[in-house]
């Protein structure tokens, strides 16, 4: 970003704050439990999936509930944030046509508001940890690291899909198919060792797999992730952001002609 656009971006930080607050306010407005839903939703889903997969399919994973809920919270954040970011430019067409606002602010605000919601959902993970007697160690203080990876990675993907969706509206329909495929390619509810060798390669190409692994190593195994995994995660998230920024910057000048 050039100096001038950084400066003008700074001016719009209050707007970013307002947009994030707006998303959060509207999301649970008039629902009785309000923000509690961010916590209850993953817990309830986890209960159902735990019953289905540990009783019916019998995956042999120690502490399956915790394994599952980590995968769910992480993946839900990625899919929710990128999907809502995808609609952000087209959805704010009316505003973009009437006032000058840095366009990047819209996908960014959607990702941030999903991120706040996910932080509530993290509480659900702690509840499961307490229930299942997993020891709470100091290593949990490492959690902000994978959270950063996740945020930066999702932001990069969001920038790409939001910019492309302006030109190709097919994205709206295609993307939900894509996220479904992606969710199966991510070991959310199955253990990685049941994957046949020929598919394992595909799994290893999924960048989200490594970030999820990072979370699980810290929470589930109480371990400090190794240097290699850390370096890989940094590369993945930074690369995603850089590619996102390049594509977004290149495409944004003509947004107004297409929305």
């Amino acid at each position, binding site marked *: 970003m050039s100096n001038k656009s950084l400066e003008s971006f700074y001016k719009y930080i209050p707007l970013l704050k307002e947009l994030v607050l707006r998303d959060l306010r509207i999301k649970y407005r008039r629902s009785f439990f309000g923000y509690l839903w961010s916590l209850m939703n993953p817990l309830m889903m986890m209960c159902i999936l735990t019953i289905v997969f540990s009783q019916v399919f019998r995956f042999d994973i120690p502490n399956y509930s915790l394994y599952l809920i980590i995968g769910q919270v992480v993946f839900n954040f990625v899919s929710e944030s990128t999907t809502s970011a995808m609609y952000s430019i087209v959805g704010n067409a009316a505003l973009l046509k009437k*006032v000058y606002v840095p366009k990047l602010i819209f996908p960014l605000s959607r990702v941030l508001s999903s991120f706040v919601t996910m932080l509530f959902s993290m509480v659900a993970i702690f509840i499961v940890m307490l229930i299942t007697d997993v020891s709470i160690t100091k290593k949990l203080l490492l959690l902000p690291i994978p959270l950063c990876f996740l945020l930066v990675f999702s932001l990069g993907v969001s920038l790409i899909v939001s910019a492309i969706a302006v030109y190709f509206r097919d994205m709206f329909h295609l993307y939900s198919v894509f996220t479904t495929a992606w969710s199966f390619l991510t070991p959310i509810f199955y253990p990685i060792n049941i994957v046949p060798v020929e598919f394992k390669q595909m799994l290893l190409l999924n960048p989200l797999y490594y970030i999820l692994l990072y979370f699980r190593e810290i929470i589930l195994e109480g371990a400090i992730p190794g240097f290699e995994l850390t370096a890989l995660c940094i590369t993945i998230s930074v690369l995603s952001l850089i590619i996102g920024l390049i594509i977004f910057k290149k495409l944004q000048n003509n947004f107004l002609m297409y929305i």
Partner: protein
Amino acid sequence: MVCISIKSVSMEFNLAEEQFSGIKDFLILATKGKLRFNKFHALKNISLNIQKGESWALIGENGCGKSTLLKVISGIYKPTSGSVIVKGSIAPLIELGAGFDSELTARENIYLNGAVLGYSKRLMDKYFNNIVEFAEIKDFLDVPIKNFSSGMVARLGFSIATAIKADIIIIDEILAVGDYAFQQKCYKRMEEMKREGTTVIFVSHDEEQVKKMCSKAVWIASGEIKAMGESKKVCDLYRQYIESK
């Protein structure tokens, strides 16, 4: 001091843009080599210098490019060629309440809209009462905007956009909504701002209002400047042209 300098600005639109809004269409058109569009020139080689503190009116028929020019000045559109240099902050009143979210209450919208214009929460706190008073919506502060009448929305939008002193104010035929009393109030506020040195750019079809508000005027016809200068003279030229048609 020149406050807005517009140098040979042209703006082109692709009229046929609707033709591909999906991958399928894009591929079909691309393979047929039909991705060339009819270009529509909304603005052709416009040059204009506006001094600080001046008040300019843009006049012309519907679709002549007035609003496009306003949007180029406020940075919403990037001109296809040419350059626009603006010194100072702009309060764009291109459509009142553009940044409103109908689900949110008036109170929340005041802060949201302020942020859209680039004002911090602290600044909005300071002007909050002023805005509410001018818009006359004190009793409806915690009502979602979707329950407001269009006049109320317009009042609130105008009130927010003009509460904090900007260096340049851009007004696009927005005062048609709102009752007579409120219109008078708006004109009064704009006069005040003008006296305090705010540069005004005004689009209107109301000749009387233009002559009263603005000392200078530009007549735009199909994207080109037809005449510019004293607002009285330009308005007269424009009226003669309309009558002779």
